[in-house]
């Protein structure tokens, strides 16, 4: 294991976060605060509690997940896409690093950054709503697993993308609808039966539901199922990554 290389990639990526602090940390915090103000305070004050939880608190886990998913996919994809775009990827490919080490460095940094912002959002939420976390360890488990899985997902998108349009396609077009329709702002039990059934095909529903369970012990689906779904998605991504490494797909033509 070339630990020096993993460290180098990791800190190199983290340094970029420092350089773009305003864009990478301040902007998600502002946009999440807006959600709290609009949905939590303005709209939420007219909505009764959901399953005994105030509306503002109810949407918190969903908002954290929304940020975590978009941040992790964004960081994970950009981290590997950018060197491909500028051409500096030559150095990565001609260095004595295995693909595992490249992934550890890039995905590690993307997940770290995503989690940092997720935690800041959680802290911000505390300023607006009363929050309690019923199962902190389960919460942390969902939090870390989601961050890693979606950073990895981002990394794969970054390798696949041939231009900025493709790079932004999934984070901008696919993730927001999945998060919004995955019960971030409502319980799927509030939907008519048909749409409830449809919602169960949305993988993000399981993430949000499991994560919310760790806060309030209320869930749209069994948290064990949520956990299994994340693990399954992670396994699929690992399989895909193994194939990418073996074939040199879009890296070593």
């Amino acid at each position, binding site marked *: 294991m070339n630990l020096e290389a993993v460290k180098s990639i990791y800190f190199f990526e983290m340094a970029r976060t420092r350089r773009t602090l305003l864009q990478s940390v301040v902007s998600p915090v502002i946009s999440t605060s807006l959600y709290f103000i609009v949905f939590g305070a303005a709209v939420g004050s007219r909505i009764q509690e959901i399953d005994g939880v105030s509306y503002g608190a109810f949407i918190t886990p969903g908002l954290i997940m929304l940020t975590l998913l978009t941040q992790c996919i964004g960081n994970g994809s950009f981290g590997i896409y950018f060197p491909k775009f500028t051409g500096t990827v*030559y150095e990565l490919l001609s260095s004595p690093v295995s693909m595992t080490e490249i992934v550890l460095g890039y995905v590690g940094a993307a997940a770290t950054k995503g989690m940092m912002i997720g935690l800041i959002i959680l802290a911000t939420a505390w300023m607006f709503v009363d929050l309690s976390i019923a199962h902190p360890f389960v919460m942390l488990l969902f939090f870390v697993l989601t961050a890693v899985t979606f950073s990895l997902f981002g990394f794969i998108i970054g390798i696949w993308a041939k231009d900025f349009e493709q790079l932004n396609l999934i984070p901008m077009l696919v993730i927001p609808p999945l998060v919004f329709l995955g019960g971030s702002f409502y319980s799927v039990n509030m939907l008519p039966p048909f749409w409830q059934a449809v919602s169960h095909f949305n993988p993000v529903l399981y993430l949000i539901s499991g994560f919310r369970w760790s806060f309030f012990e209320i869930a749209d689906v069994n948290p064990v199922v949520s956990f299994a779904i994340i693990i399954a998605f992670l396994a699929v991504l690992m399989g895909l990554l193994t194939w990418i490494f073996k074939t040199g797909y879009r890296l070593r033509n």
Partner: protein
Amino acid sequence: MAPIVSVSNLVKTYASGFQALKDVSLDIEEGEILALLGPNGAGKTTLISIICGIVNPSSGTVLVGGHDVVKDFRATRSMIGLVPQELTTDQFETVWNTVSFSRGLHGKKPNPAHIEKVLKDLSLFDKKDNMLRELSGGMKRRVLIAKALSHEPRVLFLDEPTAGVDVNLRKDMWKVVEKLRETGVTIILTTHYIEEAEEIADRVGVINGGKILLIEQKKDLMKKLGRKQLRIDLQEPLPAIPETLSSYDLKIEDDGHSLIYDYDTSGERTGITTLLTALAEAGIRLKDISTRQSSLEDIFVELVGARA
């Protein structure tokens, strides 16, 4: 001594079907400077890319220091420094960070003293805190060289290092190359500037159409393919080459004021004596005689032209 780089039967066919390398075999000795000459699209960069691990070979093997570049990539890539042709840099990084990053990628512990030395050798030290986008093209080229040297490689690849580089940098660069050679580093460079290869290389390889056309010691090559040209300036211009001299392959230049005679220095007879006698017999009076050794460029053009 075993060669430091050994390429055997290397073939590369890209997904598009384009065959960039056709059965290339080549040994590079430790400590030598090898210049690879070839026109654009000859396969130089593909060859370097495969040795460095950027491109997967279609078939054939490459050993660096006795290790296979695919199976034992850690060992081979640790030994290699690569300066790519394109000026690809992380625009927003500082010189110091990007050079240190390269060292880390190669698994070497941080060593600020070494980085400092490399930057000073390349006259980059006063720019160490500058962002790369603030640097000129020539300075960026130096940074790429510094990155390649950051991890103390045993083999250095310079892919067209002097393309678009000013005279000062070129001189600096050759000084660095000379110093590296003294420490035993093997250097492989590709270039369009044939005079550079002529000046700096120990061996010269010519590659075209994905094949190595020739690889030889520079002096042998010059000797072997070296042709000389005899230029005879005349007192009075000749309207045409006289019949008596038609057996010599003469060319007429300067409106008949000069005769040009090409001859092979390695030949048993150069034909100069008989030519001069024949000229005297024809009553042609000479003003001056000069000879010119053909350069590597002439050799190159001849070789690539003949086999294209």
